[in-house]
């Protein structure tokens, strides 16, 4: 019970501090404006006149690539820089509780930003009869993808007190995980690399799992994939922090 209480307390504190600072609002506005711009003007969603949200969800992995590491980079780096990590980690909590509390708060924040795109869904309802399952699946996949990116960013944030380094590392790792399974890239690589290698690496990629959700297919394996990425990264974060708290 203590652990639930501690995680909730940390999550609440973190969420509070997001909305205490203007950064959160700036982030939300930038996200919403960008996604709107990309969907309507670049993908010409409206002109296509189809009640299909694929042009909207197409942009999520690319936008998250910049925006999620930006949220994640301060998670531990900031605690390190200001020294508050010392007051936090000498409280009677475990490292896992601290990591989880922070992770959940940032994830809720991202989910909130994603859900605020619902006017776009209303537009599809206006254009025709959208496939509800596909929309729900798309959103679910998007939130899970954001969580996976976030866990990567959290790990890189634990590595260093320098937020820029943390950001760049997270972008590079996420980009790799994204491209490893993106057909334009896999097709290119398949020309010279053995098939088993391409498939093996692609299995680690976000992309195929993300696309499955958009079709409205909820496969337990896709959930398992995202959660194992997150658990793996959070575990790594714990390990890194245990060993270099004061560095």
């Amino acid at each position: 019970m203590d652990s639930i209480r501690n995680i909730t307390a940390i999550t609440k504190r973190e969420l509070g501090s997001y909305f205490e600072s203007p950064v959160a609002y700036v982030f939300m506005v930038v996200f919403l404006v960008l996604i709107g711009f990309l969907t309507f003007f670049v993908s010409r969603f409206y002109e296509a006149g189809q009640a299909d949200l694929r042009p909207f969800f197409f942009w999520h992995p690319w936008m998250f690539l910049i925006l999620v590491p930006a949220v994640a980079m301060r998670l531990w780096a900031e605690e390190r820089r200001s020294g508050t990590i010392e007051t936090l980690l000498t409280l009677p909590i475990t490292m896992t509780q601290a990591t989880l509390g922070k992770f959940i708060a940032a994830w809720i924040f991202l989910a909130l930003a994603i859900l605020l795109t619902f006017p776009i869904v209303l537009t599809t309802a206006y254009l025709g009869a959208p496939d509800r399952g596909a929309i729900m699946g798309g959103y679910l996949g998007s939130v899970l993808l954001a969580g996976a990116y976030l866990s990567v960013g959290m790990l890189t944030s634990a590595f260093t007190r320098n937020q820029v380094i943390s950001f760049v590392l997270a972008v590079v790792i996420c980009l790799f995980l994204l491209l490893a399974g993106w057909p334009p890239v896999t097709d290119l690589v398949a020309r010279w690399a053995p098939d088993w290698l391409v498939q093996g690496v692609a299995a680690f990629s976000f992309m195929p799992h993300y696309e499955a959700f958009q079709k409205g297919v909820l496969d337990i394996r896709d959930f398992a994939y995202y959660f194992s990425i997150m658990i793996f990264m959070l575990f790594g974060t714990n390990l890194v922090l245990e060993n270099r708290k004061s560095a």
Partner: protein
Amino acid sequence: MLKVNHLRKTFGPIQAVNDVSFHVERGEVLGFLGPNGAGKTTTMRMITGFLPPTSGTAIITGHDIVREPVPAKKQIGYLPENAPVYSDMTVWNYLAFIATIRGFTGCQRQERVGKTIELCRLESVKHQAIGTLSKGYRQRTCFAQALIHDPPILIMDEPTDGLDPNQKHVVRMMIRDMAPQKAIVISTHILEEVEAVCTRAMVICNGSIAANGSPADLKTKSRTYGAIELTLSSMPGDLISKLQQLPSAAKVETRDHSVTIYPRDPKQLFPDVMGLVKANSAWPLTGLKALDGRLDDVFRNLTQAREPAATR
């Protein structure tokens, strides 16, 4: 209450703490003294479970900080160096957050936070963001954070750093008032503070304990312990030579109108000097003072002798 066993910490090639052992019982206030970089903060960080020791451990009321960190940390209140607190929270919200993690809920929590704010005199700023507070108030907020659960063991790294003289006094009084129920460890660079609040002082140098004893004990190691200072309106010609002939005097120093006699035998010096003074009633004596030793002398002796090693 607090038992520290052979703590050791190395950062790469740097040996920050080297085999430090001591214990602190209820009612004791232990003062850590030592030059910059001696390893005081590192020792405290290991005791409070922030840094894993390279070897050794600390036992907090029976709980090993390395093997059972959570129950051990419950017994500790810790004020880290430089008072790191979340700058975007208000004082009240911050303390409420700490109280929640310390296991208080509902109105018990409100009451606890309110009381601590009162105790640490933070009422006037309780709804202000911590980042906008002055350094002293930030320090007090962090102090409040360490006290909120009334811990049996209190570890404070330079608790009066950045406080004004009145607040320094208040904090020392608070430490003294709490002392009978708690085991307290503080680190400080202010030697008067050690004499004012500590029942025991420990000098740390280059990561190991150079001296450990009550402030009065430590002072006996001072050069001036047992020395006698005479002040005179003019200097009679025979004074110095007569003093130097005393078997209990080691050295006589004059400055302007005062003479300091350092003892060879601290117990015998005072009666000897008194005898001389009585026998020479013509000496224009205006004052006589027995010195009881100075901690900064002891500190300098213990730490400067090792300075070459410290520069590595």
